[in-house]
Every structure is written in C-alpha cells, then in structure tokens.
C-alpha cells in the first residue's frame, strides 16, 4: 500500500491543498492570540490601578481651606 509521508505538519500545505485555508486561519489565530491575552491582562491591571487610586482619593481626608 502506498502511503504519503510528510516531513512536517505543514509540508503538504500548498495553493490547491485543502489544508491551506486552515494553515492561514491557524496562522492568524496564533498571531492574534498572544496580543489579545497580554492586552487583556494589561487592561485588567490598568483598571485595577485606577480603581485603587479612585478608592484612595475618596478615602483621603479633605484639607481645610
């Protein structure tokens, strides 16, 4: 029985290959995913810092005129 053997996971990905679309989509997902995750963490840290600053400002005693 003839068996197709590929040297790597994407060696068979060509223009007319049914796997080429998934190759493109996986590349897009893998490129965007770390940016989205790190952006999400950064946004959460910034919002936490702002919330803490707001809380501190509300708790601080007001200075007399």
């Amino acid at each position, binding site marked *: 029985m003839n068996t197709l053997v590929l040297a790597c*996971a994407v060696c068979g990905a060509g223009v007319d290959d049914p796997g080429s*679309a*998934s190759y493109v989509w996986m590349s897009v997902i893998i490129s965007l995913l770390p940016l989205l995750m790190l952006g999400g*963490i950064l946004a*959460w*840290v910034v919002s936490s*810092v702002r919330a803490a600053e707001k809380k501190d400002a509300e708790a601080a005693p007001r200075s007399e005129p």
Partner: protein
Amino acid sequence: MRARRPVVSSAILGTLIFVVAEVMFFSGAISAFTISRNSAPPGTWPMLGQPRLPAEATALNTVLLLLSGVVLLWANRLYRKSSPSAHWVTLGAWSFGAAFVALQALEWMRLLSQGLTLTSSALGGFFHLIVGAHAVHAMVALVVLGLAWVQMARGKVHSGTFFGAQTFWYFVVLMWPVIYARVYF
C-alpha cells in the same frame, strides 16, 4: 512618603502570565493537528486500523470538569464572604476535577489497548501530546488546589494562594472544551 501596596496580587499576575505561555503551547499543538487533519487525503483520517476517539464517553468527563469550574466559582464567592463552608465547596470542586482525571486515565488505557499509541499514527501522536499535556496540567492544578484546600481547612490560606490556584484551575477547565471540540470531532 506613601507606603506602596500591591493593587494586583502577584500570585494571580504570575499565574496569568504562565497561563498565557501555556495557552500558546496548546494553540501551537492544536494548530499543527488541525492543519495535518485538513491536509490529509480524503479517507485517510483517521488512519486505517486506528480506533475512533470516544467522543460520547468523553462528554461525561467534560461535564464533570465544567462542573468543577462552576463549583470553584461558588467556593470563591463563599471565601470572599468568609463563609466557613468555603473549604468544603472547594473540596467538591477538587473531587469533580479528580473524577475527570481518573476517567481520562481509564479512557487512555482503553485506547492504548486498542492500538492508539504515541507512534501508531499522526492521530495517536497528536492525541497523546495534546490530551496528555492537558492531563499533566490538570494533575498539577489538582495538587495546587489541594494544597490551597488544606490551608483553607486550617484557616491559614493566603488569598493570593487561593486565587492563584483558582486561576490555574480555570485555565485547565476552559482549555478542555477547545481541545475536546478540535481533537475528538
């Protein structure tokens, strides 16, 4: 000079950065699997003589793992309210997670006995890499959650430890449905 205090727990932030790296590891593996499967000539995936993955039986495992995540969310709410029953609910979440790992181990043994090994085919290699790596993460997360539970039961748990353990467990819970949907179907 104002005293400095952490706004975000170092345990949670450190765990989140670790989780980002782990998500990328799984994304790379799932990506290679998807491309390999879609590039396979028609009728050659899965390969001849290889068993079919038990998607129906694994659905029960998936429900157990998702349930453990929901129960841990409940435990978190109780912990924030300083409820004395929080550690029992945490133990419930741990038990559901342990049941998931045990059932997965049984499934693995059945598939190995049917000939699906790491070197039997591309499907076997990807299956054991992706699902095995998730199982290792689940076992480590169970140990971490178990240690947090022991500290809770003694009334000495640090909030950072519990939240860090929860973050890791939620990663294990939320990663699984993606793996299940991509690999088993």
